[in-house]
């Protein structure tokens, strides 16, 4: 299991000089969103393992039990089906549950309830299930195969689920608010590597960030890099390097993986005529496949080159640092591929 101690390392932040507000780490942004939504709406409750008295394995819910009480911050036994089933039931009776999975890998243990119960209920019965399932995912902390997965592609195929994957602290806060206010189930993926590495200034009273809307993080004319989650930071680093060579990459941060912001993807590719997709998840049938399919179906006439995917290889996430490093896509691979693509 991953050691949740933050490692030393550079702090990541978008350069947004015009934004004012307190400097906030990603994990604090999550906590703020929870607290502010609980303050705003008495229907919001939290449910999960070790989230109350302990404050969560990564401390995302630290202090919320003492602030909102045991009725609204619910510690469960080790039972992912109780966590998710409990949240579904609470949602059906009018609350707005936010379920934490201690690691998103454990979503596998409630897969049936998520995919067959929560996602299909409105379609089958007319009754919505407004719930959020959130928790840490992602590699880079030597967590091994079961504490490092980015499990978005288990769910992006599922009709009835929304899937959100923020890359910045400000988005973490704004998108989580939007997820809580959404009338349908939302899977909210927090990359644990970013928890204490990404820090943004977040304006006081910052509101929700709409689900389904991507963001251009860096404009560029030569190619589009479509990415999300922790890989945004790799993409930005790569784009800066490419820029030195005169290649201007546009970096599009998807933010929501389902529904996909097709409009923005297609608009960017219409500008650049070249598209590269970068994600941490393994390659085959990852989110990149859908992006590539959309682009090749709907922007074919604008494309000057093949749509390229850079992703982890099709293996579990290995444990030992040299293996994990070889597994994770990095700036070097990205820049090489982007260079080739630009020259195509």
């Amino acid at each position, binding site marked *: 299991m991953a050691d949740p101690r933050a490692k030393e390392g550079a702090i990541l932040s978008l350069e947004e000089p015009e934004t004012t507000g307190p400097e906030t780490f990603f994990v604090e942004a999550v906590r703020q969103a929870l607290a502010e939504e609980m303050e705003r709406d008495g229907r919001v*409750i939290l449910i999960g393992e070790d989230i109350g008295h302990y404050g969560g394995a990564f401390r995302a819910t630290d202090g919320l039990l003492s602030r909102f009480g045991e*009725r*609204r911050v*619910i510690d*469960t*036994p080790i*039972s*992912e*089906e*109780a966590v*998710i*089933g*409990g*949240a*579904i*039931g*609470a*949602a*059906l*009776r*009018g*609350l707005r*549950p936010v379920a934490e999975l201690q690691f998103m890998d454990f979503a596998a243990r409630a897969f*049936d*309830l998520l995919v*067959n*119960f929560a996602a*299909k209920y*409105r*379609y*089958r*019965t*007319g*009754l*919505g299930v407004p719930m959020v399932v959130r928790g840490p995912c992602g590699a880079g902390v030597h967590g091994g195969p079961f504490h490092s997965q980015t499990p978005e592609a288990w769910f992006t195929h599922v*009709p*009835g689920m*929304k899937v959100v994957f923020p890359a910045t602290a400000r988005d973490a806060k704004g998108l989580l608010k939007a997820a809580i206010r*959404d*009338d*349908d189930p939302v899977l909210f993926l927090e990359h644990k590597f970013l928890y204490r590495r990404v820090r943004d200034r977040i304006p006081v009273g910052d509101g929700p960030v709409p689900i389904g809307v991507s963001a251009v993080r860096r404009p560029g004319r030569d190619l589009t890099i479509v990415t999300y989650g922790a890989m945004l930071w790799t993409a930005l680093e790569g784009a800066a390097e490419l820029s030195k060579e005169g290649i201007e990459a546009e970096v599009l941060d998807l933010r929501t993986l389902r529904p996909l912001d097709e409009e923005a993807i297609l608009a960017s590719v219409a500008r650049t005529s070249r598209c590269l997709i970068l994600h941490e998840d393994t390659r085959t049938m990852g989110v990149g496949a859908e992006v590539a399919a959309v682009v090749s179906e709907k922007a074919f006439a604008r494309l000057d080159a093949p749509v390229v995917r850079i992703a982890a290889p099709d293996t579990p996430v290995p444990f030992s640092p040299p293996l994990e490093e070889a597994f994770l896509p990095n700036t070097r691979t990205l820049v090489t591929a982007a260079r080739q693509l630009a020259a195509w």
Partner: protein
Amino acid sequence: MTAVSPERLLDFYRLMLLNRLLEERLVNLYRQGKIVGGLYRSLGQEATSVGTAHALEEGDLLSPLIRNLGSVLTRGASPRDVFAQYLGRAASPSRGKEAHLNFCLPERGVYAGTAMLSTMIPVMAGMLLADGILGKRTVGMTYVGDGATSVGAFHEGLNFAAVRKLPLVLVVEFNRWAYSTPFERQCAARTLADKALGYGMASEVVDGNDVVAVFQAARGAVARARRGDGPTLLECKTYRMKGHAEHDAQGYVSKEELEAWRVRDPIARFERDLEEAGLLSGPERSAVHDAVLAGLDADLAWAEASPMPDPADALRGVFAESR
């Protein structure tokens, strides 16, 4: 029997009859090829459905299994709802999206589960948790078969309900068979009620073909739940008189076993009890029958005349935005 009011006893009778006669209509429809999908019978299990559901009060919650036709009727679902569901009609509560008893009547506290057996237990726990937070004194009831007790969600749901003392009544319908699997290949426990011990919750075993006994046990469990004393596992010993579904000829069941249970038919037995207690005369009995049948005829005619769904509806309703 004297602890239960005559009105209630007669309502048991009417509802069990409604359950059985409605199902006979469904069998006819099935034979005519009019039922969409399969048909799963509740023959012989009517007392369990009606007796348990009758113990709930206004505002309480119930989630049925496929064989709990009597439970949803007891909670106020109309035969129209049921016919329309089995016929896949637009006017069915699920608007044709779902099969048989998979529908919700939230105003009556009726909620569908999924086909995945036992998964309603943790979900019902969450519903009751929410109602508790909202200050409601709701009790929730749901059902599992003897087979479904083997599913992991049974375990996670009951453990959670017990540790939080949630007002849940879990009815375990022991009807001996799970599809073709007899209890001895399902579980090595003496009786399913023994599982309650492992959760630290109350349990009771009752003759599931005795509607009054079922009701009284369920009433006790509901009262315990409402008092805040936590969940109860109520095991009702009954028997599945037909195959798993109409397509299953239950070749794996012995004639003797079927015969032994046929004589314990819950409706015939209750009729005798009512007659002996002077609560049901021959003419009264006919009157109830006639009323039930007349209602069913009208409801079936309505359902058969009602339209199939609009194909365009297939694309609607996945999200709030796409309603």
